[in-house]
C-alpha cells in the first residue's frame, strides 16, 4: 500500500514535471525563428528588489519603441525577464537559462554587485554581452574580454563626487552615516580621504538598517560636531535618520545619494525634516529630453537612475545589432558595435527610434540615453557621467549644479 501511494505520488510529480518540460520545449522551438532576444536579470523579489518593477517597465518601453521603429534587421526584439531573487546563486541559474535556452544576445539589468560578478563568467564564456547597473569597482577588472559594459558610475566615482561637493560647500568636518552595505566602508574611506586632503577631517559610522530609531547613532555622530553629514542609506533608513537628526537639532549640511534622497524620501518625511538635504544623482545632461520622454511614457513623475539604465541597456543592444549589418546577430556583434553607436563624432541623438532609423540607413550616431551620455572606457566603465546635484527646498528637489 505504501509503495502504491508512493508510486502515485512520484507519478504525479513526474507528470507535472513532464508537462512543464514539454511546454518549455515547445516554447523554445516555436520562437527559434524570429525575434532577437535580449535577456534581463533584475531583482524582482528579495532584499534588493526596490527598483525591479520599474526596471522591467522601462525595458518594456524600450522594446515597444524599437519594434515600433521597425525592429532590428527586420526582426522584432523580445525582452526575456528573469528574476535574480536578490541572490547570486539564483541569478546564475537564471543566466544559464537565458544564454542556453533563449540564446539571448545580451543580458541587461544586473543590479547587485554580487549578482553581476556571479553571472559575468557565464556571459564572457557564452559570448554574451553583459550590461550592468552595479557599482562595485571590481566588476570591470574581471577578464571579460570586452563583454561587460557598465552604465552606472562606480562606487569610487560616486563617493569622490559626494566628497568633493561637500568640500565645495565649505564643509570641514565630515561624518558618514550609512547602513551595512558592501560599499559603506569604501565610502567612509574615500570621502574621509578627500576631506583630509582638503585640510578637514572625516569619520563615519555603519549602522544596521531596518531599525525604527537611530537616536544613538545620531548622538554619536553629533559628538564629533560635524558640519556635514553624508547619508549613505536607502529611503527607508535615511528617512528615519533625517527625522532623528531633526529632533536632535542638527543644523549642519546633509548630503546623500540618489538611492536615498529622492522624490520618495520627500514624500516620506515632513518638508522641514528634509529641508536643505543635498542629493547626488547620476544623470544625463540637465533637462535631458530622453529622460523626460521616458517618464512621460511610463506615466511617472520621476524615475530612478537604475531603471533609466535598464532602458538604455535594451536600446544600446538594439542599436549595436542594427549597425552590424553583416554576420550573425549575436553577443560578439553587440560587443563590437556598441561603442560605435554610443560615442564618437556621430550625430548626437537622444531618441531611441530616431537613432535606430539613422543607424539603419548607415548614419553615424552618438546615442545619449535617459541615464547619461553612455560613453565607455576601455575596461567597460561608463565615462563622462554627469552628476546632478539637487537640494530639497520646501519638500521639492531643486537642481543646484550639473557637472
Amino acid at each position: 500500500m505504501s509503495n502504491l501511494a508512493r508510486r502515485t505520488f512520484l507519478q504525479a510529480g513526474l507528470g507535472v514535471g513532464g508537462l512543464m518540460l514539454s511546454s518549455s520545449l515547445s516554447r523554445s522551438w516555436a520562437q527559434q525563428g524570429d525575434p532577437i532576444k535580449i535577456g534581463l536579470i533584475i531583482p524582482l523579489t528579495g532584499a534588493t528588489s526596490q527598483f525591479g518593477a520599474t526596471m522591467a517597465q522601462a525595458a518594456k518601453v524600450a522594446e515597444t519603441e524599437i519594434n515600433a521603429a521597425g525592429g532590428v534587421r527586420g526582426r522584432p526584439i523580445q525582452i526575456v525577464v528573469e528574476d535574480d531573487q536578490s541572490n547570486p546563486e539564483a541569478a546564475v541559474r537564471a543566466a544559464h537559462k537565458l544564454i542556453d535556452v533563449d540564446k539571448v544576445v545580451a543580458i541587461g539589468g544586473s543590479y547587485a554587485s554580487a549578482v553581476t560578478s556571479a553571472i559575468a563568467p557565464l556571459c564572457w564564456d557564452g559570448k554574451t554581452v553583459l550590461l550592468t547597473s552595479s557599482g562595485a569597482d571590481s566588476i570591470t577588472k574581471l577578464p571579460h574580454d570586452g563583454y561587460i559594459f557598465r552604465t552606472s558610475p562606480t562606487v569610487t566615482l560616486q563617493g569622490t563626487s559626494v566628497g568633493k561637493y561637500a568640500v565645495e560647500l565649505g564643509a570641514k568636518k565630515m561624518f558618514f552615516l550609512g547602513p551595512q552595505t558592501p560599499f559603506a566602508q569604501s565610502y567612509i574611506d574615500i570621502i574621509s580621504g578627500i576631506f583630509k586632503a582638503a585640510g578637514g577631517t572625516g569619520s563615519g559610522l555603519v549602522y544596521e538598517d531596518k531599525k525604527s530609531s537611530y537616536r544613538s547613532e545620531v548622538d554619536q555622530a553629533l559628538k564629533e560636531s560635524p558640519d556635514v553629514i553624508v547619508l549613505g542609506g536607502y529611503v527607508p533608513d535615511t528617512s528615519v535618520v533625517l527625522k532623528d537628526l531633526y529632533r536632535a537639532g542638527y543644523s549642519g549640511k546633509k548630503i546623500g545619494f540618489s538611492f536615498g534622497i529622492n522624490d520618495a524620501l520627500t514624500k516620506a518625511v515632513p518638508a522641514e525634516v528634509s529641508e536643505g538635504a543635498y542629493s547626488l544623482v547620476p544623470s544625463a545632461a540637465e533637462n535631458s529630453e530622453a529622460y523626460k520622454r521616458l517618464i512621460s511614457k511610463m506615466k511617472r513623475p520621476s524615475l530612478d537612475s537604475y531603471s533609466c539604465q535598464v532602458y538604455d541597456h535594451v536600446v544600446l543592444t538594439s542599436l549595436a545589432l542594427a549597425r552590424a549589418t553583416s554576420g550573425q546577430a549575436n553577443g560578439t556583434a553587440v560587443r563590437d558595435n556598441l561603442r560605435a553607436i554610443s560615442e564618437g563624432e556621430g550625430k548626437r541623438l537622444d531618441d531611441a527610434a530616431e537613432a535606430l532609423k539613422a543607424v539603419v540607413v548607415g548614419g553615424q550616431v552618438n546615442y545619449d540615453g535617459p541615464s547619461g551620455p553612455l560613453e565607455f572606457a576601455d575596461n567597460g566603465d561608463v565615462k563622462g557621467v554627469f552628476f546632478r546635484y539637487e537640494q530639497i527646498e520646501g519638500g521639492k528637489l531643486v537642481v543646484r549644479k550639473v557637472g
Partner: protein
Amino acid sequence: MISYLVFAGTIAGFYALLSLGLVTAWGQGGLVNLGLVGFVGLGAYTSALLSGAGFPIWIDWIAAAVVSAAVGVALCFVVRNLRGDYLAIVTLGFAEILRLAETNEKWLTKGSDGISGIVAPLKSDLGESFPFFYLIMTWTLVGIVAFLLGCLLRSPFGRALRAVRDDEQIAAVAGKSVLRLKLQAFGIGAALSGLAGALYAHFTSYIAPDVFIVQLTIYIFLAVTVGGQTRLAGAVVGSIALVALLEASRFIAAAIPGLDAVQIASLREFAIALTLILVMQLRPEGAFRMTNERSGLSASRAASESCYGKRAIVDDAT
C-alpha cells in the same frame, strides 16, 4: 537546451549532496541544522582560498569537507544541551555569523566583492565537454556518498543514531554515547555541506558572502521534506524534484498571459511555497516514508532478511 539541462542536473547534484547531509543530521539524528548554508559557504571559501594559494583541487575539496566538519563538530559540542527549536535558532544565527565574517574579513575573503576566477578542474583541457564531466563527477560523488551513508546507517551506528533521535534518555540508558553520536551525525552533515560548497565554487568560479543566504537552506529543507526526511533515496529524489520545480516554474509562469514581471517572479515563489504546503498536507512523510526495522530477534528473521536487500537503502527504527 542540452547545456542548460546539464547545468541544472549538476546543480541538482550539489543539492543532493546537501540533502544527504541533512538526512543524516536531521532525518536520522534529529538535529535541525538551519545553518546548513553557513557550512556550504565555509567549504566554498576554504576550497577557493586553498586553490588560490596553489594547492591541487583534490586537496582543496578534502580540506573543505574537513574544515566544515571540524567547525560543525565544534558548534555542535558548544550547543550540546540544545534541542529542537533552540538548536535550529542557534544554527541559523551561526550561519549568519559566518556570512558576516566572510563579508568583513576583507584581507582573507575580499569582502562583499567576492572571490572570482576560481579554477575549475580540467576545464581548459576538456573545453566543450567540461559541463558533462562535472555533471558525471558530481553524480558519481553523490552515488558514492549515498552508498557509504547507506552502509553506515544500516550499521549499529545508524541504529544507535536513530535511537538518539527518538529518545535521548533511552539511548543513554542503553549505554549509547549520546553526545558522540550527535557530534558524528552533525559532523557528517557539515562535511557534506562543505564538500557541496567546494564543488559549487569551482563549478561557477565565483563566490561571495551573498551567495550563502538562508534561501538555500530552505530549498534543501524543502527537497528533503518532499523526498522523505529520513531516507537517502528521498534526499536524491527530492533534490531532483526541487531543481525541476525551480527551473520549470520559469517557463510555466512566463507562459501565463497578462502578468507583469513582478507578478511572474512572485508567482514562482508562491508555487514553491504552495508545493511545500501541499506536500505537508497530502503526504507529510514525503515520497519515501520512514520504514519499520525488524529487531532481528524475532522468529521471522529469515523473512526480514529477504526483505532487507530489496527494500530501499535505509530502514528505520520506530
